[in-house]
């Protein structure tokens, strides 16, 4: 296993990546070299890509479905599907954006299957989180005091409870924008909709969340 980098590099380096002659776009994550080698069948390079992006994909899926075990399985499915589709990756977008797109499809396919298995109960209950285990999210960083950590853990629990009350589309827009930091254009690519739709979803999602988190939000 290649564990040379556990976190994706988000610092724009201004490097231009390319997979083929004539293709050249910004590659802030510096993924295209690994992608090009993985496309040649180099599993080591692909393993490095998995290591680099698994944290973001897992966090995104986990925040969408609120089930740790399923999020673990679905995250793997994303990387397996990405490997299968790698010959079709054309570097028109960042590799990470492309992974989010696959994750979007995997999560919605999973949701659809779950709806069918639950005898056609067509509601968004699958996405809803009935219990919030704040303790499982604590990942203390070095400089935080225990009080800060606890406060952040509580805030996260409240935000996640509020996220569970909005529609999956609104939740996904907020997570991609406010948590993952994608641009409107990238979110539109991931969710396969127009930028206007993303703006609308984000606006209403934030309105709803701010209402649900009114006390928390106004005290800050």
């Amino acid at each position, binding site marked *: *296993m290649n*564990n040379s980098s*556990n*976190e*994706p590099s988000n610092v724009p380096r201004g490097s231009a990546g390319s997979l083929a002659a004539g293709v050249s776009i910004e590659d802030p994550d510096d993924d295209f070299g690994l992608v090009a080698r993985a*496309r040649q*069948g180099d*599993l080591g390079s*692909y*393993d490095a890509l*998995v*290591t680099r992006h*698994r*944290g*973001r994909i*897992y*966090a995104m899926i*986990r*925040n969408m479905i609120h089930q*740790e075990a399923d*999020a*673990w399985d679905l*995250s*793997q499915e994303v*990387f*397996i599907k990405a*490997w*299968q589709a*790698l*010959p*079709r990756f054309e570097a028109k977008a960042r590799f990470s954006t492309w992974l989010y797109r696959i994750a979007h499809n995997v999560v919605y396919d999973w949701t659809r299957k779950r709806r069918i298995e639950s005898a056609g109960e067509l509601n968004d209950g699958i996405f809803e989180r009935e219990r919030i285990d704040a303790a499982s*999210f604590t*990942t203390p960083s070095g400089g935080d005091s225990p009080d800060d950590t606890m406060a*952040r853990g509580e*805030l*996260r629990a409240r*935000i*996640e409870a509020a996220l569970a009350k909005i529609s999956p589309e609104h939740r996904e827009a*907020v*997570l991609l*924008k*406010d*948590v*993952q*930091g994608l*641009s*409107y254009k990238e979110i539109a690519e991931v969710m396969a909709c127009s*930028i*206007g739709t993303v*703006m609308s979803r984000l606006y209403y999602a*934030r309105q709803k969340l*701010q209402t649900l988190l009114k006390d928390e*939000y106004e005290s*800050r």
Partner: protein
Amino acid sequence: MNTNPDETKLALWLEDELKGEELAAFEQWVAGQPEHHAAREEARRWRSMMAAAVPASEEPPYPEFFNHRVTRAIREEPPVPAVPAKRGFHWQSFFMPLAACAGMVLAFWLGGKNASLTPEIDVAGAPRAIPVEPILYTPEKGVDAEWFTSSKASATVIVLNGVAAIPDATDFSETAFLRELREMDATAGMNPGNQAMEP
């Protein structure tokens, strides 16, 4: 002339997504509009709160095993077919449709020519039946068969010579299969005196 930027540009500015000349032009327009600056500060505060509370990246449990499972699944699946290279222009790709068209035209022309040589085509276009001499088969020795066409009866008549006379006593009903009609009865098969039930 309306110099106001559109809603999309305003939304992009609020999210700090405008860059370069677009940003400079927008900043010039928005300089005297404090409500937009306040909205941008609000959006930044919201994003900051969300980013601080919900981590963007979270290592999955057992990360080594996670990678191992992915790698194993990839190894177990059939090899991914390589991306086919785009074909350049080739003279064959241009002439093949032409050759196919020419072949079809030739086939139609030959077909039409042969059809014009065929004399017997009726009005409906269906070919007339060609008269064929029937072959009559008689399994019994000493029996001959002849046939002729009766235009009056609009029928083909077969005459058998040498067949023994059929006796008047022959009961033709014996040669026919008649289904025996039975009344469905739950007690069918049981003897009246319950003898069948006794040992």
